[in-house]
């Protein structure tokens, strides 16, 4: 089974039925899989804070949401995480492409990578880092944890987890 399919299987098994995405090359397979599943309403957003707004509304409407985005978006979403998701105590799994780690070909991506964990830590957001494919075995437990505690929870997935960048 592909890792993208396994990840989306875990979302579906945990009744996540509303997913918003902002694309990243690493996440393309997951986004395709989200789009293909009839159990999931997939709504692409134009910016990640907008996506978190959509997720807040969907959760209040009775659906379990998730957002899929790149780590550069941590810089875009700090205010929304603090004043909406955390302030109103809402659950939100955040599946993040962790650009700028080992095997990264684009130097500028490193500039946000060095802030990523520090910002998540400062925001008191529980953070899990998938480096090897087997790390994804914890996703089911992470999703259960997120909806148990009603907090945003970050899942960082780096290039090694996705198998590198190929011929780039």
């Amino acid at each position, binding site marked *: 089974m592909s890792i993208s399919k396994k990840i989306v299987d875990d979302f579906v098994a945990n009744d996540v039925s509303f997913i918003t995405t902002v694309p990243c090359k690493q996440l393309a397979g997951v986004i395709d899989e989200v789009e293909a599943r009839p159990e999931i309403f997939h709504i692409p957003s134009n910016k990640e804070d907008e996506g978190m707004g959509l997720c807040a509304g969907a959760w209040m409407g009775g659906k379990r949401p998730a957002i899929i985005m790149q780590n550069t978006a941590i810089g875009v979403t700090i205010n929304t995480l603090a004043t909406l998701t955390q*302030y109103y105590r809402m659950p939100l799994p955040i599946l993040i492409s962790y650009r700028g780690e080992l095997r990264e070909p684009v130097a500028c991506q490193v500039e946000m990578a060095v802030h990523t964990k520090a910002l998540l830590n400062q925001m008191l957001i529980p953070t899990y880092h998938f480096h090897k494919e087997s790390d994804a075995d914890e996703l089911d437990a992470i999703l259960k944890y997120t909806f148990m505690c009603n907090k945003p929870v970050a899942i960082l997935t780096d290039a090694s987890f996705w198998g590198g960048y190929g011929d780039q």
Partner: protein
Amino acid sequence: MIRSEILKEIAPILRDQLVVCNIGIPSQELHAIDDQPTNFYMLGTMGLASSIGLGLAIAQPKPVIVIDGDGSVLTNLGTLPTIGNNCPDNYILMIVDNGSYGSTGDQPTYTGKKTDLAGMARAAGCDNVVEVQDVDTGEALQAALDSGKGTVMIVKCDSGNAKNPVITMDPVIIRDRFMKAVAS
């Protein structure tokens, strides 16, 4: 008319509906005029009222009315294409367009100058866009509800704010009572 006068006039229509209300003075005014568990007051997060309301409208079947502002929509312009391409029939976005950032001291926005929000919404793919004058808001809102079609309303009105206290209700209580009203 200023925003608070419009809200007073449409309060009887809003009362039985799910309402997502924009940050700052709009929420303070609605809270003071007619506090209801069906009102979701934004206490922070400038710009996201339309997005929260859209997620809510997609997730469940009851009508959702978003009370937004021109400044707020300008902050989150990406919302218009998302609405245009995903708008459910139970979603009404009412943009109170007073041409100013009311909560921060009535600094002018670009909609008071050359920018046309109705035109932008149409260009973004929103099918039912209506521009109305303040005095016609109630009639237009009721018509949008009765139409059973997703609608974006631009309500042109005067700049100005009523003086009301800040909302001191705990956010988790606002959210919890709202979710109970959604589910009831």
